[in-house]
Protein backbone atom coordinates (compact mmCIF):
# COMPACT_ATOMS: atom_id res chain seq x y z
CA UNK A 1 0.00 0.00 0.00
CA UNK A 2 1.31 3.44 -0.84
CA UNK A 3 1.25 5.85 2.07
CA UNK A 4 -0.28 8.54 -0.10
CA UNK A 5 -3.45 6.43 -0.44
CA UNK A 6 -4.23 7.41 3.15
CA UNK A 7 -4.84 10.92 1.84
CA UNK A 8 -7.29 9.84 -0.86
CA UNK A 9 -10.55 11.76 -0.71
CA UNK A 10 -9.30 14.06 2.04
CA UNK A 11 -10.00 17.78 1.60
CA UNK A 12 -7.14 19.91 0.31
CA UNK A 13 -6.46 21.73 3.58
CA UNK A 14 -6.11 18.40 5.36
CA UNK A 15 -3.73 17.09 2.70
CA UNK A 16 -1.58 20.22 2.96
CA UNK A 17 -1.41 20.03 6.74
CA UNK A 18 -0.87 16.27 6.93
CA UNK A 19 1.92 16.23 4.36
CA UNK A 20 3.60 19.16 6.10
CA UNK A 21 3.44 17.42 9.48
CA UNK A 22 4.51 14.04 8.12
CA UNK A 23 7.41 15.69 6.31
CA UNK A 24 8.48 17.34 9.54
CA UNK A 25 8.37 14.05 11.42
CA UNK A 26 10.05 11.95 8.76
CA UNK A 27 12.79 14.43 7.85
CA UNK A 28 14.19 14.68 11.35
CA UNK A 29 15.24 12.13 13.96
CA UNK A 30 12.15 12.72 16.08
CA UNK A 31 10.29 10.20 18.15
CA UNK A 32 6.50 10.30 17.95
CA UNK A 33 6.36 11.58 21.53
CA UNK A 34 8.81 14.43 20.94
CA UNK A 35 7.03 15.30 17.71
CA UNK A 36 3.74 15.65 19.63
CA UNK A 37 5.42 17.79 22.28
CA UNK A 38 6.91 20.06 19.60
CA UNK A 39 3.50 20.54 18.04
CA UNK A 40 2.28 22.12 21.25
CA UNK A 41 4.30 25.21 20.26
CA UNK A 42 2.73 25.26 16.83
CA UNK A 43 -0.36 27.04 15.54
CA UNK A 44 -3.39 25.10 16.76
CA UNK A 45 -5.77 24.67 13.84
CA UNK A 46 -9.26 23.19 13.92
CA UNK A 47 -8.08 20.51 11.51
CA UNK A 48 -4.98 19.55 13.51
CA UNK A 49 -6.47 16.55 15.37
CA UNK A 50 -7.66 14.97 12.12
CA UNK A 51 -4.37 15.70 10.32
CA UNK A 52 -2.44 14.24 13.22
CA UNK A 53 -4.55 11.08 13.12
CA UNK A 54 -3.64 10.72 9.43
CA UNK A 55 0.06 11.26 10.19
CA UNK A 56 -0.19 8.44 12.73
CA UNK A 57 -1.80 6.23 10.08
CA UNK A 58 1.03 7.08 7.70
CA UNK A 59 3.61 6.15 10.34
CA UNK A 60 1.79 2.89 11.10
CA UNK A 61 1.69 2.07 7.40
CA UNK A 62 5.42 2.76 6.99
CA UNK A 63 6.29 0.67 10.05
CA UNK A 64 4.18 -2.23 8.75
CA UNK A 65 5.77 -2.05 5.31
CA UNK A 66 9.29 -1.85 6.69
CA UNK A 67 8.71 -4.32 9.51
CA UNK A 68 10.44 -2.05 12.01
CA UNK A 69 9.76 0.97 14.12
CA UNK A 70 10.21 4.46 12.74
CA UNK A 71 13.40 5.10 14.68
CA UNK A 72 15.01 2.04 13.04
CA UNK A 73 14.19 3.07 9.48
CA UNK A 74 17.01 4.80 7.61
CA UNK A 75 16.71 8.55 6.92
CA UNK A 76 16.99 7.84 3.19
CA UNK A 77 14.07 5.42 3.24
CA UNK A 78 11.96 7.85 5.26
CA UNK A 79 12.69 10.60 2.72
CA UNK A 80 11.44 8.31 -0.05
CA UNK A 81 8.09 8.21 1.73
CA UNK A 82 8.16 11.98 2.06
CA UNK A 83 8.66 12.12 -1.71
CA UNK A 84 5.51 10.03 -2.23
CA UNK A 85 3.57 12.34 0.04
CA UNK A 86 4.92 15.44 -1.71
CA UNK A 87 3.69 14.09 -5.04
CA UNK A 88 0.23 13.68 -3.53
CA UNK A 89 0.34 17.18 -2.08
CA UNK A 90 1.18 18.91 -5.35
CA UNK A 91 -1.33 16.77 -7.20
CA UNK A 92 -4.03 17.96 -4.82
CA UNK A 93 -3.33 21.67 -5.09
CA UNK A 94 -3.15 21.93 -8.90
CA UNK A 95 -2.79 24.93 -11.17
CA UNK A 96 -5.37 27.66 -11.60
CA UNK A 97 -4.93 30.42 -14.15
CA UNK A 98 -8.49 31.53 -14.72
CA UNK A 99 -7.62 35.20 -14.39
CA UNK A 100 -4.70 34.85 -16.76
CA UNK A 101 -1.98 35.45 -14.21
CA UNK A 102 0.52 32.64 -14.56
CA UNK A 103 2.96 31.35 -11.98
CA UNK A 104 5.93 32.67 -13.95
CA UNK A 105 4.60 36.22 -13.80
CA UNK A 106 3.85 35.90 -10.09
CA UNK A 107 7.33 34.60 -9.41
CA UNK A 108 8.92 37.38 -11.43
CA UNK A 109 6.94 39.90 -9.45
CA UNK A 110 7.99 38.32 -6.14
CA UNK A 111 11.64 38.49 -7.21
CA UNK A 112 11.38 42.26 -7.36
CA UNK A 113 10.70 42.47 -3.62
CA UNK A 114 13.84 43.58 -1.89
CA UNK A 115 14.94 42.58 1.58
Amino acid at each position, binding site marked *: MNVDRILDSQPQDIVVETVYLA*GRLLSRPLTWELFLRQLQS*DVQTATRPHSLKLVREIVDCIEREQGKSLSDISPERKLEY*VGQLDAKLWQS*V*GIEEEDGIG*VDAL*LESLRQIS*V
Partner: protein
Amino acid sequence: MRQIYLLYSASTKLAYSIAERYYNGIHYTWCATYRRPDPHMVGMPASSNPLEIYWSYHRAVKSGDLHSSYVAANRRGIALGATARAKEGVIDARTEKRIHDIAEKAPLTDFKPLLFVIPYTLVKDSLREVDVDDAARASSLEYVIENLPRDFFDVLDLTEGNV
Protein backbone atom coordinates in the same frame (compact mmCIF):
# COMPACT_ATOMS: atom_id res chain seq x y z
CA MET B 1 20.46 30.78 32.21
CA ARG B 2 22.66 32.83 29.91
CA GLN B 3 21.14 36.12 28.76
CA ILE B 4 19.68 36.03 25.25
CA TYR B 5 20.18 39.08 23.06
CA LEU B 6 19.52 37.82 19.55
CA LEU B 7 17.57 35.05 17.86
CA TYR B 8 18.30 33.76 14.38
CA SER B 9 16.08 32.18 11.78
CA ALA B 10 16.90 30.78 8.35
CA SER B 11 14.41 31.46 5.62
CA THR B 12 14.35 31.70 1.85
CA LYS B 13 13.88 34.64 -0.46
CA LEU B 14 10.67 33.07 -1.76
CA ALA B 15 9.12 32.57 1.69
CA TYR B 16 10.17 36.07 2.69
CA SER B 17 8.70 37.66 -0.44
CA ILE B 18 5.40 35.80 -0.08
CA ALA B 19 5.00 37.06 3.49
CA GLU B 20 5.86 40.58 2.41
CA ARG B 21 3.50 40.56 -0.57
CA TYR B 22 0.54 38.57 0.70
CA TYR B 23 0.64 38.57 4.52
CA ASN B 24 1.21 42.29 5.08
CA GLY B 25 4.83 41.79 6.04
CA ILE B 26 3.98 39.36 8.83
CA HIS B 27 6.29 36.36 9.00
CA TYR B 28 5.83 32.96 10.65
CA THR B 29 9.22 32.11 12.07
CA TRP B 30 11.08 29.24 13.69
CA CYS B 31 14.08 30.73 15.40
CA ALA B 32 16.85 29.75 17.75
CA THR B 33 19.62 31.13 19.82
CA TYR B 34 23.08 30.79 18.35
CA ARG B 35 25.85 29.31 20.37
CA ARG B 36 29.27 28.90 18.91
CA PRO B 37 29.90 25.16 18.70
CA ASP B 38 31.75 23.97 21.78
CA PRO B 39 33.80 20.81 21.24
CA HIS B 40 33.22 19.85 24.86
CA MET B 41 29.45 19.79 24.80
CA VAL B 42 26.67 18.34 22.74
CA GLY B 43 25.88 20.85 20.00
CA MET B 44 22.60 22.05 18.63
CA PRO B 45 21.33 19.41 16.22
CA ALA B 46 22.26 20.40 12.69
CA SER B 47 18.69 20.54 11.47
CA SER B 48 17.75 23.06 14.18
CA ASN B 49 20.72 25.35 13.83
CA PRO B 50 19.70 28.41 11.78
CA LEU B 51 23.16 28.83 10.30
CA GLU B 52 23.36 25.18 9.32
CA ILE B 53 19.94 25.44 7.71
CA TYR B 54 21.05 28.62 5.94
CA TRP B 55 24.10 26.93 4.44
CA SER B 56 22.08 23.84 3.54
CA TYR B 57 19.82 26.03 1.41
CA HIS B 58 22.87 27.73 -0.04
CA ARG B 59 24.50 24.42 -0.97
CA ALA B 60 21.26 23.15 -2.50
CA VAL B 61 20.83 26.23 -4.68
CA LYS B 62 24.50 26.44 -5.63
CA SER B 63 24.77 22.77 -6.58
CA GLY B 64 21.37 22.60 -8.28
CA ASP B 65 20.19 19.88 -5.90
CA LEU B 66 16.63 19.32 -7.08
CA HIS B 67 16.08 16.74 -4.34
CA SER B 68 17.13 18.90 -1.41
CA SER B 69 15.07 17.95 1.65
CA TYR B 70 15.46 21.51 2.95
CA VAL B 71 13.94 23.03 -0.17
CA ALA B 72 11.17 20.41 -0.21
CA ALA B 73 10.38 21.25 3.41
CA ASN B 74 10.28 24.96 2.56
CA ARG B 75 7.81 24.28 -0.28
CA ARG B 76 5.55 22.39 2.14
CA GLY B 77 5.89 25.12 4.75
CA ILE B 78 4.94 27.82 2.24
CA ALA B 79 1.89 25.77 1.20
CA LEU B 80 0.80 25.24 4.80
CA GLY B 81 1.37 28.91 5.56
CA ALA B 82 -0.97 29.90 2.73
CA THR B 83 -3.66 27.53 3.98
CA ALA B 84 -3.29 28.83 7.54
CA ARG B 85 -3.42 32.49 6.45
CA ALA B 86 -6.50 31.75 4.33
CA LYS B 87 -8.24 30.26 7.36
CA GLU B 88 -7.35 33.36 9.34
CA GLY B 89 -8.91 35.49 6.60
CA VAL B 90 -5.64 37.23 5.73
CA ILE B 91 -5.85 36.02 2.11
CA ASP B 92 -8.69 34.69 0.00
CA ALA B 93 -9.01 31.22 -1.50
CA ARG B 94 -7.70 32.30 -4.88
CA THR B 95 -4.56 33.80 -3.38
CA GLU B 96 -4.09 30.63 -1.32
CA LYS B 97 -4.19 28.62 -4.53
CA ARG B 98 -1.78 30.96 -6.24
CA ILE B 99 0.69 30.58 -3.40
CA HIS B 100 0.33 26.80 -3.55
CA ASP B 101 1.14 26.97 -7.25
CA ILE B 102 4.12 29.21 -6.56
CA ALA B 103 5.41 26.84 -3.86
CA GLU B 104 5.19 23.90 -6.21
CA LYS B 105 6.58 25.50 -9.36
CA ALA B 106 9.23 27.91 -8.09
CA PRO B 107 12.67 26.99 -9.43
CA LEU B 108 15.49 26.19 -7.05
CA THR B 109 17.05 29.62 -7.49
CA ASP B 110 14.09 31.22 -5.71
CA PHE B 111 15.10 29.38 -2.54
CA LYS B 112 18.15 31.50 -1.95
CA PRO B 113 18.67 31.64 1.82
CA LEU B 114 18.19 34.62 4.09
CA LEU B 115 19.11 34.90 7.75
CA PHE B 116 16.75 36.79 10.03
CA VAL B 117 18.35 38.43 13.05
CA ILE B 118 15.77 39.17 15.72
CA PRO B 119 16.40 41.23 18.85
CA TYR B 120 15.13 39.17 21.75
CA THR B 121 13.66 42.11 23.65
CA LEU B 122 11.31 42.96 20.77
CA VAL B 123 9.78 39.49 20.61
CA LYS B 124 10.14 37.98 24.06
CA ASP B 125 6.41 38.20 24.72
CA SER B 126 5.56 36.49 21.42
CA LEU B 127 7.85 33.49 21.77
CA ARG B 128 6.59 29.95 22.12
CA GLU B 129 9.34 27.61 23.19
CA VAL B 130 9.70 24.43 21.14
CA ASP B 131 10.36 21.25 23.05
CA VAL B 132 13.63 19.66 22.02
CA ASP B 133 15.12 16.38 23.10
CA ASP B 134 17.34 16.07 26.12
CA ALA B 135 20.56 16.00 24.13
CA ALA B 136 19.69 19.25 22.37
CA ARG B 137 18.25 21.01 25.39
CA ALA B 138 21.68 21.49 26.90
CA SER B 139 22.81 23.79 24.14
CA SER B 140 19.87 25.13 22.18
CA LEU B 141 16.70 27.11 22.65
CA GLU B 142 14.17 27.00 19.86
CA TYR B 143 11.10 29.15 19.46
CA VAL B 144 8.18 29.78 17.18
CA ILE B 145 6.99 33.32 16.49
CA GLU B 146 3.63 33.13 14.79
CA ASN B 147 3.33 36.76 13.72
CA LEU B 148 6.65 38.52 13.35
CA PRO B 149 6.40 42.01 11.80
CA ARG B 150 9.10 42.96 9.31
CA ASP B 151 10.12 45.93 11.46
CA PHE B 152 11.21 43.58 14.22
CA PHE B 153 14.13 41.91 12.47
CA ASP B 154 17.04 42.47 10.16
CA VAL B 155 17.73 40.32 7.12
CA LEU B 156 21.20 39.16 6.17
CA ASP B 157 22.27 37.64 2.91
CA LEU B 158 25.55 36.05 3.87
CA THR B 159 26.34 34.95 0.35
CA GLU B 160 26.57 38.41 -1.13
CA GLY B 161 28.85 40.05 1.35
CA ASN B 162 26.09 42.03 3.05
CA VAL B 163 27.52 41.53 6.51
